[in-house]
């Protein structure tokens, strides 16, 4: 595939993903949240009872679909392979703090774009923080930062997370007593499209993202590193499509205040996404990309996924997650600690590589 074809493919994919994200809100998902990897992992963790925030408990079929869509297409394209072993514990910690950053902002990079498309200008502040965070990550990448290489793992390793997703789907459908659901009117967890719509949307977006390597972090990173706009075009196409759907169905409400599932504290919106962008740049991809890579058999991304999930549970069990009322004091401490930890990871893994190079 030539570079031009790659660009066209990613623009089309971005338009389709934006369209699907906009329509998922029409189908029942929370406002400006057709997709949100951070929120949906948080809801899923709540559905499993790993946190007790009653407003956000629902096993989201979009997450299941994303992972399985990538898994199925990578199998068809002979691109599935069990690989890993690149600093898994560090990746878990990075995933954990990326989630803390996202839940301060109230959304992953994907939702950040959807919030902008819905007229939530607080997300522009988040975007500024996100871009600065990626810039910080690129600073270290250019100086030799590395989590070391991956190696081929046992074949079974690459199939475990897709299998877990099928179990999650069964738990959602069969709804045994130990699976938690936010009651109707009880919060964002109660707002969702029908299971088959959410699952279908996830499968399509997962396959498109696998085919095009769609990544919210990769777009900005590649532009800073190589002045390459390919992934950035996908990012823009998604924004345009979601904006068009919002405009068409009356879901575009420009402003800073009164935005759905958002707060207007600019400093902490900025710092939350700074942390998310910095952590994601060091991980090599946004939360959605981690799900896609997990579907392809990457066990490091699977560990990152688990880190994101642990971060979500921790954030709600210990009141770190922000809400429409704004950030909590615990959340502010969490973000500051996260920035320090991510900086230490960046410095140590840059300095140790430089020593190895000399």
């Amino acid at each position: 595939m030539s570079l031009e074809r790659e660009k066209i493919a990613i623009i089309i994919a971005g338009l389709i993903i934006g369209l699907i994200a906009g329509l998922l809100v029409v189908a029942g998902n929370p406002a400006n949240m057709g997709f949100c990897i951070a929120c949906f992992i948080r809801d899923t963790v709540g559905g499993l009872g790993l946190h007790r925030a009653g407003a956000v408990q629902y096993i989201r079929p979009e997450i299941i679909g994303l992972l399985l869509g990538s898994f199925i297409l990578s199998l068809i394209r002979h691109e599935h392979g069990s690989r890993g072993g690149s600093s898994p514990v560090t990746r878990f910690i990075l995933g954990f703090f990326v989630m803390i950053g996202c839940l301060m902002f109230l959304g992953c990079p994907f939702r950040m774009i959807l919030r902008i498309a819905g007229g939530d200008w607080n997300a522009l502040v988040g975007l500024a923080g996100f871009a600065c965070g990626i810039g910080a990550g690129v600073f270290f990448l250019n100086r030799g930062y590395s989590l070391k290489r991956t190696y081929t793992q046992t074949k079974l390793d690459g199939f475990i997370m897709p299998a877990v997703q099928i179990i999650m789907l069964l738990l959602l459908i069969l709804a045994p007593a130990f699976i938690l659901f936010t009651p109707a009117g009880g919060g964002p967890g109660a707002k969702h499209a029908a299971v088959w719509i959410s699952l279908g949307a996830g499968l399509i977006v997962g396959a498109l993202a696998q085919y095009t390597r769609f990544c919210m972090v990769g777009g900005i990173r590649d532009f800073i590193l190589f002045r390459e706009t390919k992934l950035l075009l996908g990012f823009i196409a998604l924004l345009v499509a979601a904006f068009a759907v919002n405009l068409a169905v009356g879901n575009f409400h420009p402003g800073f205040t009164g935005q759905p599932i958002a707060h207007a504290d600019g400093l902490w919106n900025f710092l939350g996404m700074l942390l998310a962008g910095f952590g994601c740049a060091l991980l090599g991809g946004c939360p959605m990309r981690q799900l896609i890579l997990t579907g392809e058999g990457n066990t490091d991304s699977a560990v990152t996924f688990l880190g994101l999930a642990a971060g979500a549970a921790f954030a709600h069990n210990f009141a770190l997650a922000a809400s429409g009322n704004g950030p909590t004091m615990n959340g502010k401490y969490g973000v500051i600690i996260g920035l320090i930890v991510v900086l230490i990871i960046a410095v140590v893994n840059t300095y140790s590589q430089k020593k190895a190079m000399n």
Partner: protein
Amino acid sequence: MYYVALFYSHFGAIRFINSLPENITEKRMMPVPRSLSASCGTCVRFEGPHDLTFTIDESHEVEQIVKETKDGYIAVFKSE
């Protein structure tokens, strides 16, 4: 003749491009072409002799090296 080298990390690409002989002036880092890999990492595209051989990778950072031809890519080195 142009070649594209793929790596397990961005660090591997930096190390590789710095290790290329000075007489190779056509060299640059860029995103990995989709047709070469599902990975979204960094590769190095460089000009080299027609008969380039590459058998030992002491850094263990090089995933593969391919030669660009008008019919597509031909592998000249692959780890594992």
